[in-house]
């Protein structure tokens, strides 16, 4: 199963901020973490992460700095800012609300969830 593109985009801010809240990181490692967390379901095109990072940096939610990696190459590291943590808390509330709302309706229709065909009386042909 893979997540649809709009959802990937929508969740990207929360995901990146949450990962950076764990500690400073860089592009490749962030992507690896996303893959690990989602079990490969959240599939990002690698290059697309960077415009997201740049957008967050521009809005002051994260900061970047160039440093030498253990490989000897220069690498761009990102760190979450105070504003980023506030934003992350806000994102978290929003996603939890969405999750809770959906959770309620999932449980209400739980009986149908496992059956492949669900008759819907309102849409029956008259």
């Amino acid at each position: 199963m893979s997540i649809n593109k709009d959802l990937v985009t929508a969740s990207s801010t929360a995901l990146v901020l949450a990962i950076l809240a764990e500690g400073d990181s860089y592009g490749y490692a962030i992507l690896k973490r996303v893959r690990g967390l989602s079990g490969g379901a959240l599939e990002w095109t690698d290059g697309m992460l960077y415009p997201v990072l740049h957008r967050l940096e521009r809005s002051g939610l994260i900061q970047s700095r160039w440093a030498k990696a253990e490989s000897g190459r220069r690498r761009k590291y990102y760190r979450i800012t105070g504003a980023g943590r506030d934003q992350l808390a806000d994102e978290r509330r929003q996603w939890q609300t969405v999750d809770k709302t959906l959770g309620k309706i999932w449980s209400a229709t739980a009986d149908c969830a496992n059956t492949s065909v669900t008759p819907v009386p309102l849409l029956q042909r008259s």
Partner: protein
Amino acid sequence: MDKKRTGNPTVGQLEKQIEAWRAHLRKSQTITSQDAAELEDHLREQIAALGADGLSDDEAFLVAVKRMGAFDALTREFSREHSDRLWKQLVLSGDDRDGGTESAAAGWSRRMWVALGLAIAAAVAIKIPALFGIAFDAEPGGGFCPRNISFFAFPFIAAYFAWDRPLPLRGRLALAAVFAVAATVVNAFPFAFSPKGEPGHTFVLTRIFAPLFALLLIAFIVTMATTGRAIDVKREVLILFDLLLAVVFGLLLYSASARDAIARPGLMDWIQLTLVGTALAVDVLALWAIGSRIFEFGFTPNRVAALGENIALLVNLGGSAVLYAGFIRGRVAFSRLCDWQKFYLYVLAAWAAVVALLFPLVFGFA
């Protein structure tokens, strides 16, 4: 598979591939060298990870590039995020987008010096006409400088961009040729129909050539008259005659269109009338020669074509002479002369069409 760790040649190959990939990436206006470096770091990390999983360099490179995403999508995404950079490119161009890196700073100052040098060159070039006594504001509207001002500025701007964005030699030559042709056309083409109506320096051309051709034709006539060999002129000389008359026709047409139709008759009109008169005389001589050749050797397509052309020119020159004389005496408007010449373009074109299309049929493709 197992050769990948030992084969150093493949490492060089990989570096080349990454180099090409980075160069391709840098072509985008919105991906800075820092962005490219960041993406390259990612690519290398990915290749290393895939290599650790057992892929060869080639395979790892291909997979890593594929995962990075299509270039188009990537650059589009960067453009969306960094739309301000596009504008900066337009204004500052080149690698200003490099921001902090050392080499970029050096490149920037080098560009500054080149731009400054070219600006000074343009400023010097714009003063050159003054050395030849052509004042900048002496001729409002159709003057030399207003018309040519773009040729003092644009070549330098073009030179800057040609230098900044590496342009192949062929492109540079083409650029230079375009400017040369454009400058020639702008200066040679009569602008009498411009709102200002002042032909300016375009007229120089006819002022030089009209007397020159008049003298040339007079010399011809005098030579003919003194040697008395007008009738048995050689074929080559006859062709030269017709060529010369065609040029005179062009010159008259040109000067008529270039002349300010409202201006009063002056010295130039006398010179033009002289030119028309001498051309008329030469045309009569040519007709005489052609007539005698036809009488002597019979009809050939070439002779008939020449005969037709000379008769057409005779009528044109005769009409021009009458109109010019009338204009100088103040009885005929100059525009009538213009119309006459323009009308004759069609006559000559029609005769050329007859020669080209009907003669082969009439003379059986001889």
